[in-house]
């Protein structure tokens, strides 16, 4: 019972600290100073830096999706419909979620390690002693950049995924290009695109804020940095999948 109380207390404290960080980020968005140069650097680090992994993940996901769904559709004599399946799956679900998971592994862990190292070597305290608020300087630029870049990366992932699916459809499944692309466009409605665009904004925000939160709280030298990095990936990945489910349910109610 005592351990359960301790665990609950710890969990509540964690949530309180996370919410407090979100509050500070919110305040720093509407009050000076802004660190614009850091924001631009983060756009580059998160966006351009994650491009390769997102391109590879998107392409291979679209390709394997076309292969697998082609086999299943064959059983119903509906191989020509593969374009519908690939585009709907990529835009509504796989694009946002897989991009978010890749960014969690690459960016979330990187942020946690960077901020964690700064925390355990007193660099965060040094920043404060030099008159800089670490949340304004380190967290807010990352959160804004992450929230804006994950949707851009998702759109790119969707596009290369559908393209990859098209290549497999024509080369392996012998589905004509015109039929594949007709199916791709015919199956996509504005509601699907909205769903595919709203999700990554929320997931991007979540990944970066979790990375920053665990990084800032790192204690205990290099071991603490390691723990923070692991936590950022584990908590970020679980949060991406859980929030994706909740968001999907919510958006189905709101959009369809």
């Amino acid at each position, binding site marked *: 019972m005592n351990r359960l109380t301790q665990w609950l207390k710890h969990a509540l404290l964690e949530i309180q600290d996370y919410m407090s960080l979100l509050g500070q980020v919110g305040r720093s968005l509407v009050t*000076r*100073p*802004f*660190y*614009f*140069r850091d924001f631009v650097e983060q756009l580059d680090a998160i966006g351009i830096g994650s491009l390769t992994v997102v391109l590879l993940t998107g392409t291979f996901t679209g390709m394997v999706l076309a292969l697998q769904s082609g086999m299943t559709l064959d059983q119903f004599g509906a191989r020509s419909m593969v374009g519908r399946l690939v585009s709907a799956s990529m835009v509504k679900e796989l694009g946002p979620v897989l991009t978010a998971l890749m960014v969690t592994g690459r960016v979330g862990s990187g942020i946690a390690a960077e901020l964690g*190292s700064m925390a355990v*070597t*007193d*660099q965060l*305290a*040094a*920043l*404060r*002693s*030099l*008159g*800089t*608020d670490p949340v304004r*300087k380190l967290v807010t630029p990352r959160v804004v950049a992450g929230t804006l870049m994950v949707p851009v990366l998702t759109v790119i992932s969707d596009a290369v995924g559908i393209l990859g699916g098209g290549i497999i459809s024509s080369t392996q499944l012998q589905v004509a290009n015109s039929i594949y692309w007709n199916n791709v466009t015919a199956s996509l409605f504005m509601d699907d695109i909205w769903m595919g665009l709203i999700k990554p904004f929320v997931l991007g925000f979540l990944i970066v804020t979790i990375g920053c939160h665990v990084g800032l709280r790192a204690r205990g030298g290099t071991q603490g940095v390691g723990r923070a990095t692991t936590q950022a990936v584990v908590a970020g990945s679980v949060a991406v999948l859980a929030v994706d489910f909740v968001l999907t349910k919510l958006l189905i109610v709101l959009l369809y």
Partner: protein
Amino acid sequence: MATETAASRFSEPPAPFATGTVVIRFDEVSLAFDEKVILKKVSFELRAGQMKIVLGASGAGKSTVLKLILGLLRPDGGQIFVNDKRVDDMTEDDLMDVRADLGMVFQEGALFDSLTVRENVGYRLFEETDMPIPEVDARVQEILGYVGLAEYGARMPSELSGGQRRRVAIARALTSRPRVLLYDEPTTGLDPITALTIDEEIIKLRDVDGVSSMIVTHQLRDAFFIATHEAVKKGAGPDDVEFGPVSPKNAEKTEFVMLRDGTIAFEGSAAELRASTDPYLKAFLS
């Protein structure tokens, strides 16, 4: 760059404190982490131009004292004043103004490892003021020259030795012309020769520049060296300084504070500390 018009605050040396002004005051300050009591109703004052050397065993709360002064930690009870402003209940935004007059040299330096020495030293001026870059560069060069590292501006912290990193940390703390300097274990981990150069920088700042300071250390050799030596300016250059045994008049500038079990076990001069018959102090000094 953050938009703030505080360049003038850092471009000219601030007016010195009036003699005898209380710069830092702890008034019955208490702090505990969970069950562990760190400070128990601790009170002391640091006056303008004075230096306090805080001694104590590991975990006695020495570094905590400095973090409380900077507002990096909040006490559970009591009041802390810096330049007559109460800082223990200040908001983070208000603390930024108070910190403009405080320079902190962290244990191990805490240099920003992704920035060059020049960017580290000029950090506050580059990021928190709208001071023109050539002016910032001139100030950085001046300060690096002061600590004997004028040629090292383009280097990364990882390319420096332990002593050089510590001197860069002192330079960074000095860039904004603070009237109070806080040193957290400035010589720990350094060889005796390098530690001596750091000691001399600290003495020079106290005697030549009149900076009020607090040093937290458990390096007794360095603590007594700083307390028993003085610097006298002999010329216009930054290196034209002579070090020698402290005069009786200047000896009063430096006081020791010994922390033990969350309270102040001793407060007084180097001579009084040496003459103490308290068994704990004798054991600590032996």
